[in-house]
């Protein structure tokens, strides 16, 4: 049995969060992670620092400061021409070593899990991947809980070396309220550019078709106003062009136009897409309660008094049977190749 040499290097300082956006938007995941980071930083009595990559979103650092970040490190010229995980790992490793970080928090997705593993390997520490919850113990030791054996059990882990690296699934984390009175520092950092061992051939945007409506990023939903199954076939075309999924209200399901698994609402599924387009949906409460967390809502209905319009970021008063084909035509013009990227 190996009993390792006790190496409690709890000499680290600061809870670090790394955030990057290949698109220009600050997401809820980031804010949830920052909220969690702040909680840990307060427990540990240390500062919360966030490393962001330079993107088109210039307000992001300010928003982060308002959510309780003490220092935002803005890395410039972040290598978008290099493979993401390796390039970010190179930069992060330098920053973490320079500032002797205690904890690194990332949200859990394939990119960040990869990144965490690389950084951990480079720094001779361990990464705790895809954790569901974190607790801070004495001496700044982080206890990370993750599911094992196919989710039947959970294990609580610690890492005996600093920085303690964790990727966290952010779905269930709360988001704090921003406070404009909070201040902090924004530190510009020139990129630590290292050559990478792998090179980037191409980075492709894909909308993943998930089996689960609840995980879909784009949903086009139809209601009574669709008039029948043919309307839903057109909606499927629209969904394919946008890279999303089709959903329906109870009215459409009860009319037999679509299967029950497509239903969104109080007696159906609750969804949180980035984009929700409501076609011929009146917007009664039992439906809207299932989609109210959508980031962006577009509604099309021929009744200008429909309640759905009070929930929509963009409302179109019109006949779905005319507007839908028009939009499909426009989308086809945009993308003559159409469909998803095909390999080789």
């Amino acid at each position, binding site marked *: 049995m*190996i009993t390792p040499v006790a190496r409690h290097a709890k000499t680290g300082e600061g809870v670090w969060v790394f955030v990057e956006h290949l698109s220009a*938007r600050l997401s809820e995941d980031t804010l949830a992670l920052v909220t969690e980071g702040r909680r840990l930083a307060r427990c540990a009595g240390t500062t919360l620092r966030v490393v962001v990559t330079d993107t088109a979103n210039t307000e992001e650092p300010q928003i982060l400061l308002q959510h309780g970040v003490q220092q935002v490190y803005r890395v410039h010229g972040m290598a978008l021409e290099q493979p993401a995980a390796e390039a970010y790992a190179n930069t992060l490793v330098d920053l973490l070593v320079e500032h002797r970080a205690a904890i690194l928090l990332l949200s859990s*997705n394939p990119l960040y899990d990869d990144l965490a593993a690389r950084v951990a390997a480079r720094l001779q520490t361990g990464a705790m991947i895809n954790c569901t919850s974190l607790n801070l113990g004495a001496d700044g030791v982080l206890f990370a809980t993750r599911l094992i054996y196919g989710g039947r059990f*959970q294990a609580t882990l610690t890492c005996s070396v600093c920085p303690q690296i964790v990727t966290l699934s952010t779905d269930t984390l709360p988001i704090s309220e921003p406070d404009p009175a909070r201040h902090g520092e924004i530190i510009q950092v020139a990129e630590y550019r290292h050559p990478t061992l792998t090179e980037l051939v191409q980075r492709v945007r*894909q909308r993943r078709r998930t089996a689960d409506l609840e995980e879909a990023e784009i949903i086009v939903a139809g209601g009574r106003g669709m008039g029948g199954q043919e309307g839903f076939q057109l909606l499927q075309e629209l969904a394919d062009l946008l890279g999303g999924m089709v959903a329906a209200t109870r009215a459409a399901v009860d009319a037999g136009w679509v299967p029950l698994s497509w239903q969104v609402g109080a007696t159906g599924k609750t969804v949180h897409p980035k984009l929700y387009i409501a076609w011929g949906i009146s917007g009664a*409460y039992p439906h809207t309660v299932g989609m109210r967390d959508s980031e962006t809502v577009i509604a099309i209905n021929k009744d200008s008094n429909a309640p759905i319009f009070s929930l929509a970021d963009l409302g179109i008063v019109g*006949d779905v049977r005319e507007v839908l084909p028009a939009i499909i035509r426009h989308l086809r013009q*945009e993308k003559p190749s159409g469909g998803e990227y095909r390999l080789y």
Partner: protein
Amino acid sequence: MESIVCIKQVLDPDCQLELSKGGQERAQFGTCCRWFEITQPRYTLNPYDRVALEAAVGLREQTGRGQVTAVTIGPPRAQAVLHYALAAGADQALHIWDNALEDADAYLTAMVLAHAIRRLDCDLIICGQRSIDTGIMCVAAKIAETLALPYICGVDALELADRGSIIAHHCLDGAWDEIVRCRLPAVISVGIRMNQPRYPNLRRYRQALKTDIPILSLDSLGLTTEALKVAGPVIQIWDVSASRRLPRRIFVPGSHLPVDKRTQLILSGGIRSRRGQLICAPAEHAAGEVMRFLRERGLLQGD
């Protein structure tokens, strides 16, 4: 194409697993097995490693030359996965075990694997992206770092390119995929969807069962327990318990709002009204507006 596939024998997740009543007094390194009472243990090859084997065998068939070596670190019962590997097309099998490795975590395992692989001649080292028991995804990254080799994680598709390179496709997150190229020798970890592993050949399986695969100890690899102590496992397991259902995020009105407003929000389910634009226009114009709106927000595919 000389390839090395790192495989792992895991506890079959469908087998009867119960937490042992006594619990553990102190933290453990390494595996979670000590927390469980396993009445009828059933072991299997990690499904991701099955995919890795198939990838290696496929590459050998494609290039028409080279050998596939399957390596595992595990107690004597782990010979079973090596037999499977030989039956599935591997040419050689390596079994490494030492009692000192009983408490090894993923990092220590990776270090030992790297050490063993360093002595072998190879072009490509293939691992499964994760293991289904404890699911730590770090072995491949650690091997790559220890051997200073290029590493691509979660490969979904692989192609051999010219000048001794490979081109691999992997996902970054829900929205982005990358196509990456690197020179060989390299390390890759494969995602579960990369291929469909073939059924092992029965004749080969019978032959494999007759082969006695020697178990290499740490000494024969030139590793001392002292060296391992210094490297040491880093991840400690404090507790294993039954999993709890993950909480769902529910709407909670902001605490800065007055009580009546909060009550109203709770009752209405937090549906917030949005001050959006309302457009009454002919269909063509409306469609144009929607396109403009989507484009502005970066919601169109290909943005």
